[in-house]
């Protein structure tokens, strides 16, 4: 528990009753949560080791209500922690005692789908998978697919610029977003973008995406929907050495092939996931790649033939092409449940650094050394095509001091990612988790420029204030 929260503002805590009364006048009574028991449900997110009970929770049903609440909070100096489904792995939605949680989960409708124009307008509390389900009957889907897609909201995806296993081909949230309705801190409702491509003026859409709830609250979004491929099939390749798997990835891309997904798992991850999903993963290899290609049967066969030929010089110990829908589903179930399955065997923290893929063998070796030096274990799952690593540093929360060791190991791993030319976070966001590491990726000038832009939207640090930027050295307007 090494991450500090700002000291709660006593003056705000003292006004709690008055603040709740004020909020009560703005939203329906069922939208305002004040009892301690009910507030406790919002005390954390996917980073469950940190918990803070918020002052109150507001769950509005309309953009107007969001606007009224934000205007009120600004006037009364009340901090706001925006929340989607609370699945953030970096603590992006963890509250603080002197803040209200402003959740968009009740605003979860599809407003309009235009199949001809290939766009969908949705309220931001809809789940990621909910969008795909709403357009599936016409063969369409929404492309970014974070592992939490069953639960996470598009609001949270926009806040974190979320990715997923298939973004090698389809891009991340920012590449699939056409417009947003944003409520600014003073209650002003602005429309950015729309049903068209590219914005007029500055790319405010690109700025809002990934801003971790610090610029405003998104209540509606226009996303691109895509027609799904005719079919998709994964293949498994097991290697005796991490180096061989890494070289195989480079060779596939070097041959001009961009698979729709290219996933890497190391031995511990393979064993944990196989025990959970019974996907037929090879248990006697050091590294495994899941390579998925899309298209018609004929195209898939052609592509897999090419990939097998490319892989052969790297002496894969196993090569297995999925033969059925059920087998494909099992292969993906194993990968997508990597976090959950690891949770069955140990406590863990999930890192999210990105590295230049050429550095893979070196970084994996170093991760192993780092984790061992703390006396802990690690399982690695990794979006190999784009260099996005997810080392799961395992520990036992009942052993005093182990969690702190895991956090330290995680920090060392992220520093390593930056050192080799990568970054702290590829798709989860900074949140509170990586806030204090920002200075190893950015110098003071870089961070100040970001904070100055942030300050245009929220000069007084009322929006999700404990996150993203180190608590020291903040620019206050």
């Amino acid at each position, binding site marked *: 528990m090494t991450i500090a929260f700002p000291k709660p503002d006593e003056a705000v805590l003292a006004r709690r009753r008055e603040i709740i009364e004020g909020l009560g006048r703005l939203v329906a009574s069922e939208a305002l949560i004040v009892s301690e028991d009910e507030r406790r449900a919002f005390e954390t997110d996917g980073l469950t080791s940190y918990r803070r009970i918020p002052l109150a929770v507001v769950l509005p049903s309309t953009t107007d209500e969001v606007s009224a609440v934000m205007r009120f909070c600004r006037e009364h100096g009340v901090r706001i922690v925006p929340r989607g489904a609370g699945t953030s792995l970096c603590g992006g939605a963890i509250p603080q005692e002197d803040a209200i949680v402003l959740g968009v989960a009740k605003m979860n409708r599809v407003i309009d789908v235009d199949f001809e124009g290939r766009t969908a307008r949705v309220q931001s509390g809809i789940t990621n998978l909910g969008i795909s389900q709403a357009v599936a009957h016409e063969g369409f889907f929404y492309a970014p697919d974070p592992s939490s897609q069953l639960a996470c909201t598009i609001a949270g995806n926009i806040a974190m610029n979320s990715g997923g296993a298939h973004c090698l081909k389809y891009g991340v949230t920012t590449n699939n977003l056409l417009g947003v309705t944003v409520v600014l801190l003073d209650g002003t409702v602005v429309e950015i973008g729309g049903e068209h491509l590219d914005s007029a003026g500055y790319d*405010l859409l690109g700025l809002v995406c990934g801003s971790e709830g610090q610029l405003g609250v998104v209540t509606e979004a226009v996303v691109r929907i895509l027609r799904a491929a005719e079919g998709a099939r994964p293949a498994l390749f097991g290697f005796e050495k991490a180096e061989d798997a890494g070289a195989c990835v480079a060779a596939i891309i070097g041959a001009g092939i961009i698979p729709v997904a290219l996933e890497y798992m190391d031995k511990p991850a393979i064993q944990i996931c196989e025990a959970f999903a019974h996907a037929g993963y090879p248990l006697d290899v050091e590294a495994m790649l899941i390579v998925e290609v899309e298209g018609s049967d004929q195209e898939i066969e052609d592509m897999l033939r090419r990939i097998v030929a490319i892989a052969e010089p790297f002496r894969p110990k196993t090569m297995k092409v999925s033969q059925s829908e059920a087998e494909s589903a099992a292969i993906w179930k194993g990968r997508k449940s990597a976090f959950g399955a690891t949770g069955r065997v140990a406590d863990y923290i999930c890192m999210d650094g990105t590295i230049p893929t050429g550095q893979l063998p070196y970084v994996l070796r170093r991760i192993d050394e780092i984790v061992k030096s703390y006396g802990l274990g690690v399982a690695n799952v990794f979006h190999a095509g784009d260099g996005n690593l997810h080392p799961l540093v395992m520990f036992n929360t009942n052993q005093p001091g182990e969690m702190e060791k895991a956090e330290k190991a995680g920090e060392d791993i992220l520093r390593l990612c930056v050192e080799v030319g990568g970054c702290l976070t590829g798709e989860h966001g900074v949140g509170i988790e990586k806030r204090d590491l920002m200075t190893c990726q950015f110098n003071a000038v870089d961070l100040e420029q970001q904070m100055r832009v942030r300050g*245009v939207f929220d000069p007084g640090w009322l929006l999700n204030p404990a996150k993203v930027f180190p608590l020291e050295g903040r620019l206050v307007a």
Partner: protein
Amino acid sequence: MTVHTPRDEQDASAIIREAAENGTLLNLAGNGTKASMGRPNQTDATISSTALTGVTLYEPAELVISARSGTPVLEVMRVLAAKGQELPFEPMDYRWLLGSKGEPTIGAVAAMNISGPRRIMAGAARDSLIGVRFVNGRGEAVKSGGRVMKNVTGLDLVKLMAGSWGTLGFLTEVTFKVLPKQERMATLVIRGLDDRQAIEALSIALGSPFDVTGAAHIPDRDRRGGSTLIRLEGFRVSVDYRMNELRRLLKRFRFMDLLEGNGAEALWQSVRDASLLPDHGDRAIWRVSTAPTKGPEFAAQVAGALDAQWFYDWGGGLLWISTPADGDAGASVLREATKAFGGHATLVRAPAEIRSTLDVFEPQPEALMALSRGIKASFDPAGILNPGRMYAGV
């Protein structure tokens, strides 16, 4: 007028810091091939990226290339082509339209978010731009993003820099995600469709699972029909299969040909560069982005009020419109249409007298303009970088 040509980032910092202290208004430039775009503005000196050249990093297996901002686009493309790769977003070359000479720079591609037909499939320049280094209006060297393609660390200033037309900072280095050049390209040409039918056909193609990478329609001058272009790119086996499937999907449109080879490449280049507009260099040119299905109504409304010619890219969502270069060059008509159908219109080419009297870029609602002014001030408090090039006060 003084022209500064910094040789590195420190040079650029010193020049801009001094300009900020003295209130010297700077024109930010590469080789000046697009100098006649945007609002005409008054500046005291030019800072040019022409001495900042060269590819600084290229890792084909990691799909990433970095270059100093003054590197010619041609050079970047040549380096990529040697390894069978390309810029995914197919940047347009404005020289034909603007009648300019010299080599466009990669920095301008980032600064103006310049894309081409493949934008519908592969995203815009801003989607491939993964890292920037720039000098802000304080003279500070700032970096954002990096060289890895998945990166959500901190506020995405890369996106802000893309398409900010040099009003926020002087780019010194840009990093792009790149993709393999495809083995085969083939284009299906449907003839004889009017605008509405054409956009319908393009929407069917774009709504298919076949990854269409180009979707354009060029109306005939008599407006009775035209050429509707649908492009596929990929491995040979795949393009052959998909082309057959597309033909089946679109069979009710009847008059179809397949176009391949140099002719097809040249055609897509003319779509990309908007050189399909019948033009003698004396008309105004507008670029409109709207919802693809709104394209035909948009064009019809403009044509009802003006002597206009046009063609569509991006499945109908990008309209290139030529109008008479007198009065307001059709601005009031175009702006009414963007209000009615959504999207935005940019006056790409018109005499400076016209561009100085009207909004070259789509006017923004006041709340967005207020944010834009705030953002400008956060990068360039003295207002010395390309002041007014996009909007008054920005």
